Structures are given as structure tokens and as C-alpha cells.
């Protein structure tokens, strides 16, 4: 590869890393707009209009990164005049704990992986249910998998609709297809990381809750079922081996992709379309997201996450939160969500021809769209991990032992 073009690619690639933007931010809020809002709020407060003030406050999103994309924020602002402020999650459980700790008064929108709404947020009254007559038709426009009543969008008694599904994919591992054939990777699955030949040849993307689930898979344990003492022991042994044998551990997937391109490693976990698509769009098609063909989770080896967009049970509900939840499923908004912050990601609305037709052949190739349904079929749906604390402690102990 020519050094200059290679370096340019790396730079473009790095510039698209959404992790660079992690943390608190107020998207789309210029100084002038902020001063204007403060002045308007002051005037409204002086006139005693508490309801009017509520209409003026920014819509507050506790979310994963695509909903903070400036294009999406600007489009909402242009179409409604409303402001948006947002903060990106550290992890699902951290944000659930924040809502539990009283931040329902801070946020209007929460975007978490599928099990949290049904299992914890709704039973603890941290989110509001959605009017089914308004939102169920949206599910009819999605892939068959999401046909209503879709389990993860409903309360356990199937009475209440808890959110709208949008981004989804499988998140397992990534190989250099020039070194390991994707078919071999699918067939071998997680045993690739158990294979001594690959010791020192793989990296770990330290999305730590995902790493715990992956190590369960590699240890032959169903991540979403109760573990025995023997399971915990096997997990601990596997975690120690996998963490010790990893060449590189980082929270930055660009670093892992670069390590593959440089031949430093041949594969890494955890990874998927989310970590490979922007690099594949740049022509680096040897970065291949793999979902194992089989595994210990009811015969499946992959994990399929589905994000659910919900309305937080804010004591002062934002008047536009339901409009926003519906608006982000419209083709223009869904397209931006799918391309959020430079990262290409499948969305459930891609079954609508109006949206699907906007994707170029290169984009579909970057998404590995030809095998997407197969990957989803080979994956168990993400769920809450029983005994997570015990597993996480074993995992961090293994990480501490790296020396």
C-alpha cells in the first residue's frame, strides 16, 4: 500500500472515531443560542409561565452516539425550533443507575440496549409507556423480526409499549480476512481465541460488559442464564487465558483496526459492523465482522443487540418527546442515525424501500448486508447477564494479571 494514501486513510479513519466525542456535550448549542435561551427563560420566568418555560427547555438525550450527530440535531432544530442537549452513555448499567439515582428529572429520552426497558426501567417506573395507536404502526414498517407485539418493546405483561426500535446488529468479533477466512472464523467461532496459535495475535476492545459476555461464550457458558460454581470457575480460567494472551487491549476500535492493518494482530473481540463499517467504506474490506455459526447460547454463538428509544418518566415531561421518538424513524432522520457520527449502522427502518434505496452498493458492502440476516439468525438476543458482578470481578482480576 502506498504510504501517503495509507496515512491519509488512517487520518480519515481516526477522524471518524466516535469515541473522540465521548462525554458531556450540548449538541447544537451556540453561545448566541445559549444566551438567547437564558434571556427567554428569564423573561418567561418573570411572567410566571412555568408551562411555557417547559416548552423552551432543551430536549435532553441520554444516549449512544448517533443521536448526537450535528446533522440530526440541526435538522430537528430547523424543523421544530427546539434545542437538544445530550450526553453519551458510559455503559447501559451506568445510565440505568443514573436514572435510578434521580436523573429522571434531567433526561427526556433514553436509548439503551433491549433488555433494560422491559426488565428494569419500566418495573421501576423510570420510563413512560407510549401510546400504542400512534407507535405500533411504526413496527409494521420494520423487518419481520420486529413485528408487533415485539417482545423487547413490550412490558412483561404485554400491556405497555416501552419504546421504538432503531439501531441493531450483532457484536462479536472481527478478523483480518486476508489471514483468516470468514467461513473458517464462522465455523470455529469463539474457539479461535482458545486456540494457542492465536495467542499474542489478537486484541480486545475493552467494552467491558461485552467482553464478559464474549468470554462466557468462549468458556461454553450461556451468558444470559444462571451460572453454577463450576461455570464461574471455567469463566475465570478462560478470562485469565484470554486477557493474558491478548496482544493489545484498548477502548479505541480505530487502534485495533490499525493494528490489524499493520499486521500486529489478526483478530479482535468485541467487534462488529459498528467497529468495521467506516473503515470498510474507506476500502479496507479485509476487516470482516464475524458472527459465529454456533455456540453455547441455545446453540447460537453471536449476540444481537437492539437499541430501544424510550421516553424517560420525567416529572416535567417534555412536550415534544413523543414527536421526537416518531420523527427519528422518518427516512431523513433514520438515514442520519444509520450514518451517525460517520459510523455506518443498520437500522430497523431499512425495510422501508424509501430509506433502503438511499444506500449505495459500497455502503451495503460496508455493512456486510449480504450476510446480515444470517448473522442475526445466528445470534441470541442481548439480555441482562445474571451474576454479572461476580463475572466482572473475575474479568478485571484477569486484566490486572496482565504483566
Amino acid at each position, binding site marked *: 500500500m502506498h504510504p501517503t494514501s495509507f496515512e491519509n486513510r488512517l487520518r480519515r479513519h481516526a477522524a471518524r472515531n466516535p469515541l473522540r466525542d465521548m462525554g458531556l456535550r450540548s449538541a447544537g448549542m451556540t453561545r448566541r443560542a445559549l444566551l438567547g435561551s437564558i434571556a427567554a427563560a428569564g423573561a418567561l420566568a418573570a411572567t410566571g409561565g412555568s408551562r411555557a418555560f417547559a416548552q423552551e427547555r432543551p430536549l435532553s438525550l441520554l444516549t449512544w452516539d448517533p443521536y448526537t450527530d450535528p446533522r440530526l440535531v440541526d435538522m430537528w432544530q430547523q424543523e421544530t425550533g427546539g434545542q437538544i442537549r445530550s450526553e453519551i452513555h458510559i455503559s447501559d448499567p451506568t445510565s440505568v443507575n443514573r436514572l435510578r439515582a434521580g436523573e429522571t428529572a434531567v433526561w427526556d429520552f433514553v436509548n439503551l440496549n433491549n433488555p433494560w426497558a422491559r426488565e428494569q426501567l419500566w418495573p421501576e417506573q423510570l420510563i413512560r409507556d407510549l401510546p400504542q395507536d400512534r407507535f405500533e404502526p411504526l413496527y409494521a414498517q420494520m423487518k419481520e423480526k420486529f413485528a408487533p407485539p415485539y417482545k423487547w418493546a413490550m412490558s412483561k405483561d404485554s400491556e405497555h409499549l416501552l419504546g421504538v426500535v432503531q439501531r441493531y446488529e450483532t457484536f462479536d468479533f472481527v478478523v483480518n480476512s486476508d489471514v483468516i477466512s470468514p467461513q473458517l472464523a464462522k465455523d470455529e467461532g469463539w474457539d479461535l481465541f482458545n486456540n494457542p496459535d492465536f495467542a499474542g495475535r489478537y486484541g480486545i476492545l475493552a467494552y467491558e460488559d461485552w467482553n464478559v459476555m464474549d468470554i462466557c461464550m468462549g468458556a461454553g457458558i450461556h451468558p444470559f442464564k444462571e451460572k453454577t460454581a463450576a461455570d464461574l470457575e471455567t469463566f475465570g480460567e478462560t478470562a485469565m487465558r484470554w486477557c493474558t494472551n491478548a*496482544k493489545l487491549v484498548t477502548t479505541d476500535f480505530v487502534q485495533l483496526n490499525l493494528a490489524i492493518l499493520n499486521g500486529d494482530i489478526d483478530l479482535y473481540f468485541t467487534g462488529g459492523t459498528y467497529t468495521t463499517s467506516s473503515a470498510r467504506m474507506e476500502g479496507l474490506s479485509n476487516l470482516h465482522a464475524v458472527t459465529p455459526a454456533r455456540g453455547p447460547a441455545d446453540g447460537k454463538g453471536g449476540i444481537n443487540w437492539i437499541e430501544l428509544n424510550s421516553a424517560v418518566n420525567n416529572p416535567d415531561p417534555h412536550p415534544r418527546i413523543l414527536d421526537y421518538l416518531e420523527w427519528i424513524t422518518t427516512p431523513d432522520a433514520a438515514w442520519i442515525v444509520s450514518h451517525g457520527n460517520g459510523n455506518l449502522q443498520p437500522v430497523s427502518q431499512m425495510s422501508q424501500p424509501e430509506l433502503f434505496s438511499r444506500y449505495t452498493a459500497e455502503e451495503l458492502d460496508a455493512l456486510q448486508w449480504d450476510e446480515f440476516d444470517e448473522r442475526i439468525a445466528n445470534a441470541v438476543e442481548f439480555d441482562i447477564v445474571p451474576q454479572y458482578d461476580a463475572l466482572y470481578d473475575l474479568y478485571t482480576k484477569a486484566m490486572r494479571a496482565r504483566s
Partner: protein
Amino acid sequence: MASLDPRKAGPLAMAPVAALLVVGFLVPLVLVAWLSLMPERTFGLDAGLTLANYATAFEDGYIVPLGWSLFFAAATTAICLLVAWPMAKTLARRGSAFALVVTILVALPIFVSESVRLFGTALFLMPRGGILAGSLNALFGFQVGSILYTKTATLLGLVYVYLPFALFPMILGLSQVPRDQVEAARDLGASRWQVLREVELPNAMPGLLIGGLLVFVLAFGANTEANILGGQSVAVITKSIDQRFSYAQDWPLGSALTILVCAITAAVVFPVLERIDLDRLLRR
């Protein structure tokens, strides 16, 4: 207009900073200390006192990252002081345009984000397509390996980032060395080593100690170098603390580890600070 009592002026002037330190430093530190005595994975401050988190810190492998952080901090301090000494001596002696240019060159990287600099270093060190290895291969046909994602790379990153913090106090310290004392020592037949040991080091010691302390404290709390350049080849204590507070949601154990780090830092810093005569350094 009645003039302010000079005895009250000092405390009054100090009051805003003191209030800020109490609210922004002392209160959070007390809260963290208290939280470290709560049972594991609790969020309240009234769940019953226990030392279990400190026991866990010693029994559950946290000594390893603590040891690595201490090693990196000590090694970084030693290397920075050794590297900075000849530079500081030259710069303290030559108050010319040359000294100004070198000072600017050393200081300039401080104005660039640490992460950006470290990612740049990672690109430089990468094997094969990296700037160093790729250039050597393209220009001279050399095939070289790489130290990237090793402990050595972590140490290199720490020295690179924290060198200026050792250099500038050291220049200040060396400027305290009286030129006539050095010349007198030489006239009386002192060797270079004797001049260094008997004249330069004692006079420059305050600057040396301040520079060393700054580097030690900053390197002890560093995580980015081990993350970006070291590929987490070893876990450092700040990473472990971060994990307990975020993914593990175990604030009491995270707090206990934080207090241990603070205690070790204090055990190093306070005895050294006692030996520094700031009045002399600031020529008061």
C-alpha cells in the same frame, strides 16, 4: 478611609481560595474517604462502616497495578531528572536566543492535547506502516520491529509527556547556583564530580525536588500512556479505579483504591516538601 489591619489582610485575601479548596478538594476527599468505608457496591453513605474494601484492595490483586504505577512513576521521575539535568544546565547558563528557542521547543508540546500527542507517537512507532518503521524500510530497506504495546512504550510516553515538568523547575533551581562558588571550587582544585556534588546539587536541590515531585505525582496518576502506547500490557492503578467507578458500579472499592493512592502520594510528597526552602527558591 480607614486602612485594613495588615493582620486581617492576609486571611481575607486567602478566603476565596480557601473556600474553593474546602468545597472543591477537601469535601470531595472526605466524601471519598467515607464512601471507602461503606460495604461493596452500595451508593449510600449510611450503610454501616467496614474496612472490607481495603482488605479486598490488598487481597484481590490490586497490589499489582499499584506496583506498576509506582514503578512507572519512579522510573519516569529518574529518567526525566537525568535527561533534564544537562539541558537545564545549558539553558540556565546561556540566557541567549538559543535558550529561548530550546525552551519554546520543549514547552510547545504542552499546548497540544496529551491524547493527540500520544496517538501521534503511536502512529510513529507502529510496525510496518508506521512512520518510523515505514520510513526506514522505504529509505534504507531496514526492517525494524516495534516497541508499541509494551511496557517500554508506556515508559517512553510518560517520559515524553512529563519531561517539561522536570525541566523548568530544574532550570529555576540551577539558576540559584552562584557562579562564583563554582569558580572558587574549581580554583581550589575540585573535580567536576566534586563541583556537582558539593556546589551544584545542594544549590539546585529545591528545583530538582519540585520537578521530581511534579513528575512523580503526575506519572503515578497517569493512565493514557499505558492505554494508548502500552496497549494495556499492564494494568495501572488509575485504570482499576476507573473500572470500579464505571463498569463495576462499585464506588466503595473505587474510593478505597483512591484513598490508598492519595496516602502513597502524601507519604512521598510531604517529607520531600519539608526539605524545600521555597523562600530561597523564590529569592524572598
